[in-house]
């Protein structure tokens, strides 16, 4: 097993680079897992727009308005300077900024409409429409009560309005779509896995292969009493052991991050899918390793290939936000089918079939085989060229 050992000695010289990729992957996964993720539920939970309210008015009416709107939105505290408000809006820390100018309560109750509320929002956004609707609804109710009931106090009107707002339309969620589990963070972990595993495996496989493909070393190895078949098998075994180790390490971390919050079936499917993709990376590494000529080109090739496939296949950006043409192009890459499978698995319901998931996995294995065949073809071509 000299070659097998040699393979890992070569890899150990590149621990620094490999651990950079691993730590970026684990760091980002940890960050996104700790961020709150959207979950689906069986009761209707209204979306809450992030809003900042600045009140310059002393009136009781303004206070009641703020209390009403705060309950139906997610109020955020930001400091009242132009720069911090602008920054907050740009980065969507708030999506709607409401300023109640001095004298608004008085003007509203007198119905002269001289002092108006001031808003700034992400232009033409759904959250702007939503908060506008909430504000206008409250003000309309208030204007009705103040307009029709003479001598009503602000507090009395507010109490009437709050009573009215206790009745609601009955909202039902279609049962068939109830998700079995919440799986937001997990699917991010497995989505991002596709990028890091491709970078790590391409890097290590090509590095190992390039060292053995060196003309002098290759001639020495061929002259040695070691059989070529055994040599090749040991290289394959080295690659396989390394790839499976990366896979196992990542899946283990994924399980720890989720603290076993998922059901066994989804776990198994996600891990099986990840293993299929790991084989794709091995195949691709084998091909690139034969096609590439110098150590210097490896990093460039690895980055362009892994980032490129990840970007167009919806690893970093949700697939729904990608254009149609890009998705069509992406469907010719294995990453697309990996992401497709991860998405189907995370929205899996108890009674839905796993046929399309298995299909995606088979397509990935097909890609792995195709890359392997391409790599063998290039290798054969090269060895023929060498003999000639």
């Amino acid at each position: 097993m000299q070659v097998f050992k040699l393979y890992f000695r070569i890899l150990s010289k590149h621990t620094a680079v490999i651990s950079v990729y691993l730590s970026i992957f684990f760091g980002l996964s940890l960050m996104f897992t700790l961020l709150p993720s959207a979950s689906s539920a069986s009761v209707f939970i209204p979306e809450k727009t992030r809003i900042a309210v600045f009140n310059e008015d002393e009136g009781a009416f303004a206070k009641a308005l703020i209390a009403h709107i705060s309950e139906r939105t997610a109020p955020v505290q930001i400091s009242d300077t132009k720069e911090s408000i602008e920054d907050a809006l740009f980065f969507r820390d708030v999506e709607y900024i409401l300023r109640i100018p001095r004298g608004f309560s008085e003007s509203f109750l007198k119905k002269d409409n001289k002092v108006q509320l001031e808003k700034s929002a992400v232009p033409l956004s759904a959250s702007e429409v939503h908060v506008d609707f909430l504000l206008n609804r409250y003000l309309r109710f208030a204007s009705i009560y103040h307009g029709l009931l003479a001598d009503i106090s602000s507090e009395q009107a507010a109490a009437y309005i709050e009573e009215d707002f206790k009745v609601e339309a009955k909202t039902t969620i279609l049962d068939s779509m109830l998700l079995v589990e919440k799986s937001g963070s997990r699917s991010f972990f497995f989505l991002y896995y596709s990028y890091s595993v491709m970078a790590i495996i391409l890097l290590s496989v090509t590095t190992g292969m390039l060292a053995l493909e060196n003309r002098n070393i290759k001639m020495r190895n061929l002259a040695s009493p070691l059989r070529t078949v055994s040599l090749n098998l040991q290289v394959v075994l080295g690659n396989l052991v390394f790839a499976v180790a990366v896979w196992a390490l990542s899946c283990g971390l994924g399980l720890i991050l989720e603290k076993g919050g998922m059901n066994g079936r989804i776990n198994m499917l996600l891990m099986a899918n990840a293993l299929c993709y790991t084989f794709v990376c091995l195949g691709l590494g084998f091909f690139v390793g034969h096609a590439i000529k110098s150590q210097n080109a490896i990093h460039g090739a690895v980055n362009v290939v892994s980032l490129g496939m990840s970007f167009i296949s919806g690893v970093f950006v949700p697939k729904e936000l990608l254009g149609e043409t890009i998705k069509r192009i992406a469907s010719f890459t294995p990453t697309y089918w990996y992401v497709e499978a991860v998405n189907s698995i995370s929205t899996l319901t108890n009674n839905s079939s796993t046929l399309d998931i298995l299909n995606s996995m088979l397509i990935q294995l097909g890609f792995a085989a195709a890359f392997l065949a391409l790599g063998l073809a290039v290798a054969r071509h090269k060895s023929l060229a060498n003999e000639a």
Partner: protein
Amino acid sequence: MFWHLFSYRLRCILRDKQTLFWSAAFPIVLAALFGLAFSNLDSNELFTQIPVAVVDNDAYRQSNAFKSALYSAASGKDALFNPILCTKDEAVALVEEGSVAGSISIGADGEVNILVKETGISQTILKAFGDSFVQLSRAFKTIAETEAQAAHKFASLLANEAAYIKETKLGAEYPNKSVIYFFALISMACLYGSFHGVNAVSSVQANQSHVAARCNMAPVHKLLLFGAQLSAALLVQFISCLLLIVFMKFVIGVQFGPRLFLIIFTCAIGASMGVMLGALVGALLKQRLNLKIGIIISLSMVLTSLAGLQYPNLKYIIHKSLPLLSYVNPAALVTDAFYALYYYEGLERYFINIGLLLGFCAVFLFVVYGVMRRQKYASL
């Protein structure tokens, strides 16, 4: 003599394909990928009329109040909904297949039922509309009970659509968060100029290469030699960054705002900062070139991540909670300079960024000069 040294250094740089790939081509490849992936990123928060299935039953046909409420919410330029009249079964099918955001129906007692498949902002607005209808009915009852004669004015008050809210515009341009990806990418390209900086230093350090040793033997002033190397690096890096910006603006369509001269100026300052940083790393460390390159790659990865390359909000969070960190991170300064040019009306924040960047360049250059002028090679 300067031009001779300069032009030969320029040729060396242009023949170093690997460094050129990382400093010039790779950012453009990444920009193209960003362009492909982020083209629709902001479109999902834009409001589009919400398709709603309306169940056409007896109660609906008889309730003029509901019909007029729906009509006023579905017409005009601020229309919320795009209603589709259908039977109850059709409505369920439409919701199931996801072609409408939800369905709404009114019952015989005036109660409103909403059916949705998922919760989202469209469904929230639909629900708020349904709520508002049943709540108005209740308000009408309350008023009729307390002051019967006032109730007939209810409809006219309801029709009154006074404008209670006026809009104040913020920022010079649309708050398009995805430009931060591109601005952070420019800062990454600037930092990758460090490769040229490191090379410029090691090409005059006699212990780094044979060529450098030979250069040191030549009867030419060390400052002149180094000045020529550095100028060539600066020129190439400036042109690379400029090409990146041209590619982003004209091929991908990234918005930079109207201040063209300042954009080019920022590009030049950013490129200089990158080259100087590389020169600093090259001058301070005595190790092999590969290690220096490794340090630069890790450093630029960390700095650009903090500037928002992978997650734009990180830049905002750091600026808000750890402002000092964003002022000492040159990548964040470059990103913020482009951001300020794009989004702010005033130039105050922009000039703070540029001032700090110039300060960094000066400090780096000063240290590099201090270290290099003492270097003597008694034996190699």
